[in-house]
């Protein structure tokens, strides 16, 4: 026990120990480490974009358009990943774009996921009229063309990042509700839930303490899938003028802009696309590690596996 640990007493020590515990957990899981590194890298890039980016993402140079990345013929070190159709540095745009993409992706997932989960819980748990009403609301929204909804909202509120997040969230909460409702319906019948009800737990307590933890796994998976979808959906909206306005940019918008030149300048679509893929991968690795690490059974299993492995190694 270090001197630091010894000086802590009570709750602070517990926290310190648990952080150390998690740290130990993650150190032993290589893929999770990769995931954590990616996510941290992303957050830092987004936070310090202006410091890291080699060029101003809006600085155009019409004489240096569509230059390839440095390792190809005609590439230069000035523009490491090449330039876009207006001669702007792809790398700098990638770095600055991370802000919008991550903010929109995370924002929408939290907003839509939160709202959708609550709706799904209410529908699944209380059933009857509540379920009918909420599900019919879901059906109505699903049949309504998403683009039309976007146009209407943005005509009223005006394009901005906030309204973009709102539009994408409004268009995206239904899948969470359906997923959660389905899971709740099957979990509701389980003995321990019934037991909790019989003992006299308030409905809300049952829902949040007993039903919800079972949903963490499918919800997390869904959230990651939705994150990827949102980042790309934002592209379609921004391209039409319903999202970020120039000179601001996002990965999705770069992908949409690069589509026209795909066969002439593949790097315009590939690098932002790769960035999206990397973020999704990182988040997924981290999330799946979180899922396992937060389950005490799994922690036991991995501890046992490590112990056996250590014993087996020749001394």
């Amino acid at each position, binding site marked *: 026990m270090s001197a630091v640990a010894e000086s802590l007493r009570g709750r602070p020590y517990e926290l310190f120990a648990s952080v150390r515990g998690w740290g130990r957990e993650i150190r032993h899981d290589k*893929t999770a480490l990769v995931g954590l590194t990616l996510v941290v890298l992303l957050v830092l890039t987004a936070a310090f974009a202006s410091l890291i980016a080699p060029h101003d993402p809006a600085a155009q140079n019409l004489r240096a358009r569509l230059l390839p990345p440095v390792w190809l013929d005609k590439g230069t070190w000035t523009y490491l990943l090449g330039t876009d159709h207006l001669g702007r540095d792809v790398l700098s745009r990638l770095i600055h774009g991370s802000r919008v993409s991550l903010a929109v992706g995370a924002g929408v997932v939290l907003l839509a996921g939160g709202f959708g989960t609550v709706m799904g819980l209410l529908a699944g748990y209380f*059933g*009857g*009229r509540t*379920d*009918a009403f909420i*599900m*019919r609301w879901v*059906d*109505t929204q*699903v*049949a*309504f*063309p*998403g*683009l*039309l909804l976007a*146009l*209407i909202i943005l*005509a*009223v509120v005006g394009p901005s990042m906030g309204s973009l997040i709102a539009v994408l969230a409004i268009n995206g909460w239904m*899948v969470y509700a*359906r*997923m959660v409702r*389905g*899971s709740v*319906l*099957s979990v*509701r*019948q389980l003995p321990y839930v019934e037991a909790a009800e019989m003992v006299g737990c308030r409905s809300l307590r049952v829902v949040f303490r007993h039903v919800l933890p079972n949903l963490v*796994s*499918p919800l997390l*998976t*869904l959230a*990651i*899938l939705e994150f*990827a*979808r949102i980042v*790309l959906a934002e*592209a379609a909206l921004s391209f039409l003028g319903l999202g970020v306005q120039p000179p601001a940019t996002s990965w999705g918008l770069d*992908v949409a802009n690069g*589509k026209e030149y*795909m*066969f002439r300048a593949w790097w315009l*679509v590939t690098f932002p*696309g790769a960035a*999206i*893929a990397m973020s*999704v*991968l990182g988040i*997924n690795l981290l999330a799946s590690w979180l899922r396992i690490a937060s389950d005490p*059974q799994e922690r036991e299993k991995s501890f046992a596996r490590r112990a056996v492995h250590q014993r087996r190694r020749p001394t």
Partner: protein
Amino acid sequence: MGRHLLSRLWHGLIVIFGVTVIVFVVTRMVGDPVAMMLPLEATAEQRSAFEHELGFDRPIAVQFGEFVAGAARLDFGDSLWQRRPAMEIVLEKLPATLLLTFLGIGLAIVLAIPIGIVAALRPGGGADQFTVSFSLAGLSIPQFWLGLILIYLFAVRLHWLPTSGTGTPAHVVLPMITMALPALARLVMTVRSAMIDELNQQYARTARAKGLSRFRVVGVHALRNALVPILTLAGWEVIRALAGYSVVVETVFAWPGLGLATMQAIERHDLILLQSVVFTVAALVVVTNIALDAIYQRVDPRMKLT
């Protein structure tokens, strides 16, 4: 069961009606289709004359009355943009979208279940890591990129398939694959995660300990229990494709479906065609949901439905 079905149908009608009315009200509040129909240099008088001819300067209550009367006969009027009955346009384009959706999403579902199960059998193993990386890549790439690359490889370079359009079975191959891949990626992730959760449960280990074959435990018992989230997402993919999200594939492959027509109707503020489309899509969504809930019941009898 019969009573339940009846009540669902009744609710379905409410949804369909509700959606159509909302579209009616909203589209008349926002944007002016006349502006988009005439050339930019037409004068203001020309525009208002046009509007008058189309009947859009009448009070909204009058327009609404006419709309409801027509809707009861499934007659939504003539599309502003195409100048022919809107329902005719919808019914003409619907089969193409249905074909694309069922082939594409169908393929995705059929492939996702075995792939997801194999990945779930040994979480963290080679097959699993490969599957997960592939899936994450698959759902991060833009669909138009996938479509264009496939066209370039198989049509331009290899000349095995046509670049776009419809007509022969060969024309369906690339659009179907492009439609299936992102859905496949999402479904594989869902199947895998659901199966991992099920296989971790006590009952799975108990069943194995009792001597049941691996195949029975995984393929029959675990799969059955994991089906609820899988079915939810599969149904969701179908509904989304029908509700217009097939537009990217339809655009890239010049596939004359409803998704593309919907987007064009929105861009042109063709209120009448939009009403027809939304009505039809709402009907499809309702039917799909009823079917889905019926499947839920069969799969997991524990679920008590309203």
